[in-house]
């Protein structure tokens, strides 16, 4: 019996990231290599400043690596231009930030619809309403972010990341601004939906308990995988 081939969604090969002038460079990542398969959930842990968020930014194409190769769905994104990177993001990647980053003058529904609108899908209202209802926000769809609690805002942010059915979700400390109970519910929701949609998940966290629930843990220390 054949095991189904697991496709690599993200692949980092000897990725380096350096900031600052060449005379006194700050090396954030010093040759990081790892890969993430589809439907796999990994956590990236490590102390502050170890380069966790930089990995998220590089994988999303929001930052350029100093050297090395980053493949997203087997496509090397390190050589791509701005427009191609935008296309990679809207087709393959969903991002969840610690600070939610919802657009303040758009309602919960409109924030979720943004992901579809980025991909020129302008008739996704029903789909977005269904997803928000599944997330327990059916009664909040027309509320502005300022009218939602932190947990509700993060659920909207997760719905926004998932609605386009990306191949990978990049979550940068998604529960960092939430209390313990809300945080646990949020994690369950995130895990359940990424599993259901067969989406890979990269979870950056400080929470060891949360990290242990993932399929794999990558620990960063001083810009290297420990």
């Amino acid at each position, binding site marked *: 019996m054949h095991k189904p081939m697991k496709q690599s969604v993200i692949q980092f090969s000897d990725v380096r990231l350096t900031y600052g002038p060449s005379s006194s460079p700050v090396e954030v990542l010093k040759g990081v290599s790892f890969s993430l398969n589809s439907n796999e959930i990994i956590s990236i842990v490590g102390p502050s400043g170890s380069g966790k968020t930089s990995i998220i930014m590089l994988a999303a194409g929001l930052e350029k690596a100093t050297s090395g190769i980053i493949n997203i769905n087997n496509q090397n994104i390190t050589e791509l231009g701005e*427009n191609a990177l935008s296309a990679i*993001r809207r087709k393959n990647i969903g*991002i969840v930030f610690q600070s939610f*980053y919802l657009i303040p003058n758009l309602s919960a529904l409109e924030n979720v619809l*943004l992901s579809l*609108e980025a991909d*020129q899908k302008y008739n996704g209202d029903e789909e977005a309403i269904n997803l928000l209802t599944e997330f327990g926000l059916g009664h909040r769809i027309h509320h502005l972010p300022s009218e939602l609690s932190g947990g509700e805002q993060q659920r909207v942010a997760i719905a926004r990341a998932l609605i386009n059915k990306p191949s990978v979700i990049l979550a940068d400390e998604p529960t960092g601004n939430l209390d313990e109970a809300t945080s646990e519910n949020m994690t369950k929701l995130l895990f359940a939906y990424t599993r259901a949609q067969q989406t890979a998940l990269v979870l950056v966290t400080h929470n060891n308990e949360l990290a242990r629930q993932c399929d794999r843990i990558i620990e960063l220390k001083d810009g290297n995988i420990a």
Partner: protein
Amino acid sequence: MLNLQQWAYIHRYAIRDIRRSYKKLWVIALTLFISLLLLSLTFSVKQSLNDEIEANSKELLGGDIQIDSGIDPLSGDRIKQLSNLGQISETVNFFTMLSKPSGGAVFTDLRAVDGVYPLYGEAKTMPSDAWAAFRLEGELPVVLINENIQNQLQLSVGDELTIMSKIFVVGGVIVSVPDLTNSAAFGEFAIISKQAFDQFELTSAGSFLHYDYRLKTPQSSDYQSKIEDAQTLFANDENVRTKLPKDSAQSLGRLIDNFSNFLNLVAVSAMIIAGIGISNTLLSFINQRNTSIAIKKSLGFSSKTIQLIYFYEILTHFYWGHRLSHFDALFINKKMESLLELD
């Protein structure tokens, strides 16, 4: 290339954003509105004044052509030749003292006008029948004075005034005369009849005399050829200068132009100041949207779409700012016209 659906989305998004951010955007809208209003107002007032001058240029000159012969009157032959082209009005201007027998004198620009003056428009006086009475001439010759002379010498209708030792009676106060540009608008002036001027031989004013003739061509005649004929008559006479209505309009127009240039300068200065304000406000407009822009980038919106959304918003502000200020300027201009009773 963006398709129609994308343009519709950009429009929808931008309008929604403006509608929901109006509290933050009213400063931009107001700054834009005021500066554009000022500029539109300046241009529209200037245009309106110039149109008015153009329409009344013959009244401003007092004829279809003015012939200025300086200190000497035109010869009888020349006057005869001119009268073949239309109706002629003769005026003599000179400066002299107007004195009150009981004491007090004013240095005045005195104008002696003939019976057909003014050829265009009408002279307005107080009392209103003073002009008609001035024409009739009674026992004593009549002088019409301006309001300043009346105030300075404390004169009333019927009082006596001495001009070059001849007694005149005050017939009324001049409110306006049509050929305003040719009168001493900023000094004292008075009008007597040419008949009294000749009768009392006031020509002794000598080199201070200034003779002007105005021609009104018959309505049915070929205006242009008559004017050319009149100009040809004096083409070789170095002491005679001719002036057409457009020259008169231009000289007043230059005054208006200077005034409107000043207004333009004020408007442009306001625009520069407002421009700095606008650029700062636009910068803050973009800065306020930095987070929204970053979120859109992270969701995969193309840079072009994001730029177009905000460019569209800014253009919408400019469009409505311009429309509103332009129409408001026209409205204010109309109001000003009615307040100033310009026809």
